[in-house]
């Protein structure tokens, strides 16, 4: 049963030419588990349909059904499943191979794992040509070069001879697109084509896809990012738990969503709201009060000061690289400082230096006016619990042998040992329960292993552990980047609650400008290890002074999504 609020499936209006993709009542099951149910959509040449949804919504399985790539354990049924008029139901393996590449191209999310790491880029691009009997070799090589230049790879002759690892993420993604369009397929399926990319690179790839679409290719875009969808798609199919909850023209669906799930997805986008507004309908966190013996510093007092910090590394090739170059900033009590930059801008190294996990090559960090980076580890230990951290991948920051309860208890004992104080009468098991409840988790999770939890639950555990030490500063390094947008919204709300309840200062590091704008009081823009702009968040985002910041902001897709000006932070 579908709960589609706009049932356009069977009665979809076909105007002009016959659709290049026609999917009607598609269902896919693995064993007795139905993953996709009753999905219907059509796509005409030169148009783009986007399938959006979160992890587990079945969007990728839907797309792979058009390629016959769901594996032998999948049972696929549909009343229509055709590509360019050809019925795809009951194709033999050999017949599928003729379809793939020729009728339909496929672009995957991460080009580093999608390209054979041991083969030259040119050879990977030539694969489709060879498979479909384009030859001889010299002709193929010429075609590869023209394909690479068509997708905007500079000096294609050089790039074709390089290995994927020698290319940047953006170039790899272009090479992958070149391979997918090698035989001029009528349909291109792009599954999260820009998710792993920096904002500016993402903008270039989206422009390239848009160009292909304008050239007459039908584009099926799989994405969780509604900004990307709004920019590129004509029609949108919103999926949740394997069923279509809403579909239609992109303007109608995103501009006036009918289904609560679509509304929730839209509401979860930080840039759609005034900074600081609540993003999810999750209840406010019920955080246990901090002990009176451990008050937060007076709001506005200087907590962390980083001055003229530089970090150089000598690589295995004996070349010294400056990763962080003369970075200075101050963090005051109760304040959230956002650090934004693309990959390789030195964000994470800056965080490691602030945490005193990496010593700076030059420059100093002080904590409450006292030396911090220049101390010996032994001298620093007493203040360690006051600066806590949450990383992008919480699982790797948990001792794999420990359960959730053990992890949090370990943080409690660590803080106690470091502070050389017995805790103020609060029992450890009581504290573990308080902390878990505080971050919105069930107490029973204490006995589980983090590896059995979902991404959002793990991130909450990481936050609970960070709070266990009653910190004055939280260093959040891409703490919400790996989460689905609705889960991200809940975690951002939780962090806002923590800030409101405890007045904890935060260093919030992210590549996501929307998130940074939402959470930050002040913003620091990093580029190649240097600070290019710093100022109050609103000022930096409304009227950026540095051309790099302007470029970053321009590259953010779909900023037109309804911003509600009446919303109060």
């Amino acid at each position, binding site marked *: 049963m579908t709960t589609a609020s706009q049932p356009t499936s069977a009665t979809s209006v076909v105007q002009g030419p016959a659709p290049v993709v026609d999917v009607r009542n598609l269902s896919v099951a693995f064993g007795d588990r139905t993953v996709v149910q009753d999905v219907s959509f059509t796509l005409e040449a030169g148009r783009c349909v986007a399938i959006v949804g979160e992890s587990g919504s079945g969007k990728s*399985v839907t797309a792979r059904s058009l390629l016959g790539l769901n594996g032998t354990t999948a049972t696929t049924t549909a009343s229509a499943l055709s590509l360019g008029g050809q019925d795809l139901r009951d194709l033999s393996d050999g017949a599928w191979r003729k379809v793939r590449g020729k009728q339909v191209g496929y672009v995957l999310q991460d080009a580093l794992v999608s390209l054979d790491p041991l083969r030259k880029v040119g050879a990977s691009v030539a694969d489709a040509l060879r498979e479909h009997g384009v030859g001889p070799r010299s002709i193929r090589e010429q075609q590869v070069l023209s394909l690479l230049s068509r997708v905007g790879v500079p000096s294609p002759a050089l790039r074709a001879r390089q290995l994927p690892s020698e290319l940047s993420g953006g170039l790899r993604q272009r090479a992958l697109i070149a391979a997918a369009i090698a035989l001029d397929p009528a349909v291109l399926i792009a599954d999260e084509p820009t998710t792993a990319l920096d904002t500016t690179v993402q903008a270039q790839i989206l422009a390239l896809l848009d160009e292909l679409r304008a050239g007459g290719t039908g584009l099926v875009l799989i994405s969780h990012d509604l900004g990307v969808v709004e920019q590129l798609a004509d029609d949108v199919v919103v999926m949740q738990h*394997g069923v279509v909850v809403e579909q239609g023209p992109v303007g109608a669906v995103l501009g006036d969503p009918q289904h609560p799930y679509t509304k929730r997805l839209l509401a979860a986008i930080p840039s759609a709201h005034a900074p600081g507004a609540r993003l999810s309908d999750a209840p406010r966190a019920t955080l246990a009060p901090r002990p009176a013996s451990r008050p937060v510093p007076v709001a506005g007092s200087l907590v962390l000061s980083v001055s003229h910090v530089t970090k150089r590394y000598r690589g295995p090739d004996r070349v010294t690289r400056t990763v962080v170059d003369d970075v200075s900033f101050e963090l005051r009590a109760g304040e959230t400082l956002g650090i934004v930059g693309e990959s390789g801008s030195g964000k994470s190294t800056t965080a490691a230096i602030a945490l005193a996990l990496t010593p700076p090559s030059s420059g100093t960090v002080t904590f409450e006016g006292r030396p911090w980076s220049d101390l010996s580890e032994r001298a620093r230990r007493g203040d360690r619990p006051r600066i806590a*951290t949450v990383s992008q991948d919480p699982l790797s920051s948990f001792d794999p042998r420990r359960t959730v309860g053990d992890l949090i208890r*370990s943080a409690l004992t660590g803080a106690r040992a*470091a502070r050389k104080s017995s805790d103020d009468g609060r029992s450890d098991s009581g504290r573990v329960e308080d902390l878990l409840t505080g971050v919105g988790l069930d107490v029973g999770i204490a006995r589980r292993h983090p590896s059995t939890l979902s991404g959002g639950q793990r991130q909450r555990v990481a936050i609970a552990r960070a709070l266990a030490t009653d910190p004055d500063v939280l260093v959040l390094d891409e703490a919400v980047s790996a989460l689905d947008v609705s889960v991200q919204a809940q975690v951002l709300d939780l962090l806002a609650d923590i800030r409101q309840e405890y007045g904890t200062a935060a260093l919030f590091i992210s590549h996501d400008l929307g998130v940074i704008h939402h959470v930050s009081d002040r913003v620091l823009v990093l580029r190649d290890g240097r600070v290019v702009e710093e100022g109050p968040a609103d000022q930096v985002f409304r009227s950026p002074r540095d051309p790099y910041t302007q470029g970053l902001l321009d590259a953010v897709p779909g900023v037109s999504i309804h911003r509600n000006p009446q919303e109060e932070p």
Partner: protein
Amino acid sequence: MTTATIAPGEPDVLDPAPAPAAAGVRKVRRASHPLRRVSFWVAAAFIALVAVAALWPSLLAPQDPLAIDLGKSFDAPSAQHVFGTDQSGRDVYSRVVHGAGQSVLIGVGATALGLAGAVLLGVLGGLGGRAVDAVVTRVIEVLYAFPGILLALILIAVFGSSAGTQILAVGIATIPGYARMVRGQVLAVRGAPYVQAERALGHSSAHVLFRTLLPNAFRPLTVLVTLGIGQAIVWASALGFLGMGVQPPAPEWGAMLNAGRNYLQQAWWLDFWPGVVIVLLALSLTAVGRAVQTLTQPGGPR
């Protein structure tokens, strides 16, 4: 078995409908739980049997393994002598059972010695800094390059042939394999984010070392040890077979194989039974080792 092998996209297929509260328990059954496998229990039972034989042999074989009865030499397996008798009329079954003690002692002893040396070298290399690590790496390489048999010959020339020499020879020969692994593990775990996280929480260096770093670095060893004991027993038997171990007529599996080799054509059971026991014990230890490996994976068996 799922599409994940074909297209490394999102793990969509694994979890179609995550329940909001208990989301994330995504179990893809790859194999049955190790404790529900018959092979595991058969292997474990055999190991238990050998353990009993090693600790209290007369419980399983009341006859004296050294008792000579020349009138009964080369008797084929029968109700009275289930494994037959050897050239001096000694009961092969009793000898196999009583030989377990020697073999297990050598296997466990050699593995313990190998591990101790390996942990010392590996931790030293992994934590001692660049100069120490360079020395440790060279030592490991030299040990690797040194032929095990030559080492055993030297040790026997110095200490004479005994179970102790066998332990020493096999133990030293196993050091480099374990040591390289320990060193690599220590280096990997030392740089792991969770070790940094522990440090950032304010734990002392000693706490981080003994409660987090070393336990995690040693974790893969638990499996290797189970596998290693079986391997060490095979090696010890090989040394016994070459006459470099316990001397006849004392019962030891390798020595029994050697003694029986000359009579293989007329009395196959002299070599067959100790050989079968060695093979079964090594197999059983491997099977149990694999099960332990699965059970100790982070998050339990999947």
